[in-house]
């Protein structure tokens, strides 16, 4: 199994080729590149919480509408928290 980043890179290459099934236009690809470049240039990622900071607590609903409390999770051990944009 290839590592995650090389699989992502492969997908990106396929997408940016403009070929099916994605059929991305050159214009759309350039628009996405522009947005990423601007976000990078803004330095926003450097302002995110970092190692040594206290993590915010949360109580959120899972996919089955059960409320999950981060304090309950942490009582059992370390927690990996991954932020995900969406299914699209």
């Amino acid at each position: 199994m290839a590592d995650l980043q090389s699989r992502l890179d492969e997908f990106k290459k396929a997408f940016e080729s403009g070929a099916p099934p994605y059929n991305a236009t050159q214009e759309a690809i350039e628009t996405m590149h522009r947005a990423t470049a601007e976000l990078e240039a803004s330095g926003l990622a450097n302002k995110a919480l970092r190692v040594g900071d206290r993590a915010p607590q949360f109580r959120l609903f899972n996919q089955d509408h059960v409320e999950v409390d981060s304090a309950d999770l942490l009582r059992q051990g370390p927690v990996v928290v991954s932020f995900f944009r969406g299914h699209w």
Partner: protein
Amino acid sequence: MELEALQRIYSEVKDLGAQIVVLTPELERYTRALHEKLNLTFDILTDLHLKIAEQFRLLYVLPDYLRELYTSVGNALDRFDDEPEFRLPMPGRYVIDKHGIIRAAAVSADYTIRPEPSDTLNVLRALKTKARQVA
């Protein structure tokens, strides 16, 4: 792809005494469908209106031109996330120790770049070793 990759390491994560949760602005009807489709065994939590992403300082607003592009290809964040302002989290993966302190942080402004799950496992292994030394 990242969710599947996290699923593949999840049994090892649990063996290390840790857990995984994924936070997304998407509404529950979408997280439920995705959870089923990918056969995930960890939770996807709906971070409604990105309140927690904001506290982690991962929140950004999509520029108008990108919003137009997304809308034109049927990617409706106003519907998926109830986000009329089209805000999103930057991709980030954190490891939080049992005291609530962040022990690893990987944040990227480029959404096509994600940290390797193996790096996350290494952090958890180091935390476990350290916990043993203290005990």
